[in-house]
């Protein structure tokens, strides 16, 4: 039983540090990604006229968001929203939605 406390303590430390990793490095829900569901559907799966984003490749999502932000890809609301995303947000959103299967 000598290993018990160090091992348990290590597990707790790992658990606690998860919250401070950048969102892009994880597959964890984060606030900005969850807000996309209001238009693109839960997990990015749209039941209506707005495109589904869940399950698309990270590369496609990232390139789309960058193009929306710069205006090279025409849009209605996406330019206005993407203007508020940082580069880190775009990476995190691309990673998150690419993993919604």
């Amino acid at each position, binding site marked *: 039983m000598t290993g018990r406390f160090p091992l348990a303590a290590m597990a707790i430390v790992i658990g606690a540090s998860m919250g401070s990793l950048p969102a892009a490095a994880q597959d964890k829900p984060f*606030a900005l990604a*969850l807000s996309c569901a209001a*238009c693109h559907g839960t997990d990015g799966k749209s039941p209506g006229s707005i495109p589904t984003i869940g399950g698309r490749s990270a590369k496609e999502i990232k390139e789309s968001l960058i193009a929306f932000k710069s205006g090279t890809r025409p849009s209605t609301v996406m330019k206005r929203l993407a203007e508020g995303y940082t580069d880190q947000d775009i990476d995190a959103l691309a990673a998150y939605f690419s993993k919604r299967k």
Partner: protein
Amino acid sequence: MKTFSRRSFALMAGAAAGTALARPNLAFGASARVVVVGGGFGGATAARYLKRLDKQLNVTLIEANKQFVTCPFSNLVLGGLRTMDNITHGYDGLAKGGVRVIHATVQGIDPGARRLSLSTGNPVLYDKLVLSPGIDLNYGGLPGYSQAAAERLPHAWKAGPQTMLLKRQLEAMPDGGTFIMVCPDNPYRCPPGPYERASMIAHYFTTKKPKSKIMLLDAKESFSKQGLFQEGWQAVYGRMIEWLPGKAGGKVTEVDAKSMTVKTEFGDHKGAVINVIPPQTAGEVARAAGFATPAGWCAVDFTTFQSKVDPNVYIVGDAAIAGAMPKSGFSANSQAKVAALAIVAALNGGKSEAPAFANTCYSLIAPKYGISVANVYRVTDKGLVAAPGGGVSPSNAPAQVRSQEATYAEGWYESITHDMFG
């Protein structure tokens, strides 16, 4: 004796120790109890996402009504584009997702005992409480207006029977009548709502009663998406809609249901149908428990939406003072997710990441004429503020852009109602 592998033993020990340490207020193995009050855009979203984020949570939703009628798209019912059935939703999807749904009213909150008393007589205990009570109409804020007067001068600012009452009045109105809307000062639920409503009623008049007029008497000097609304009104409805800002005679000082008269500093106006949108406050359950400021709204920590009064209580949606975010269904949905993430983190002994929020509000000027305002919001040292960029649809855009936004407005409604109710 069965031997554990080193790895599985470590996981078990870690899980057990982690649970015991992280949930000090709970008996070993017990699930945390999160209670959500109010089953609208904030509350339904909070309940659904709490359960999605942590299946072990014991999530209870308390909502007075068996069905929820959305304020978004209720203006489309007035315009004849939607039926009440189209905008009415039940709670079965949430129940199937593992949320315990109790249809009752909250009669009191005891923050010390973390206990709610309910109209059912059975109290409910919580570890964390989410309040999403929406608005109450402040009838006393407008002389002459009252709950009784609202039976003649509907507000229709909570969707349901009031929406139907206003619709029936509009249908009974003779062609050539004047419809008056009394528009409130900020802050209030759905900043562009009165102007979308005027648009939808203009659409109805144009198709059924083209000689009728619409007069908006506004306490404000300007309003949400004003340039786009006025551009659209002129293009689609000519001179049917007249808007009077506060200083030009729009400020209403008194209403009289008996004589169907609205009084302003510049004189009286008689209407065939009068829609009075009165001043508002946070819903009573939050005010009665002492969570509201004297102005009637609830101050929260923007990173978590925890009440400034009680950190075990999270207040989302229209009831909250949310900095630059408008009081909209989308805002409530976004805030509810931030609160759910914060609650799950707190129950596990951690902190959620600095949140970003989003809001998009669509308004329909005509069936194929949509406009929007869209922003990301962040917490900075200046409070909860709009991120760079964002704003409203372009002015003088081609018809195709307006039509696309009308289509996306419908898509938004489909998505957000599925997101809330499952």
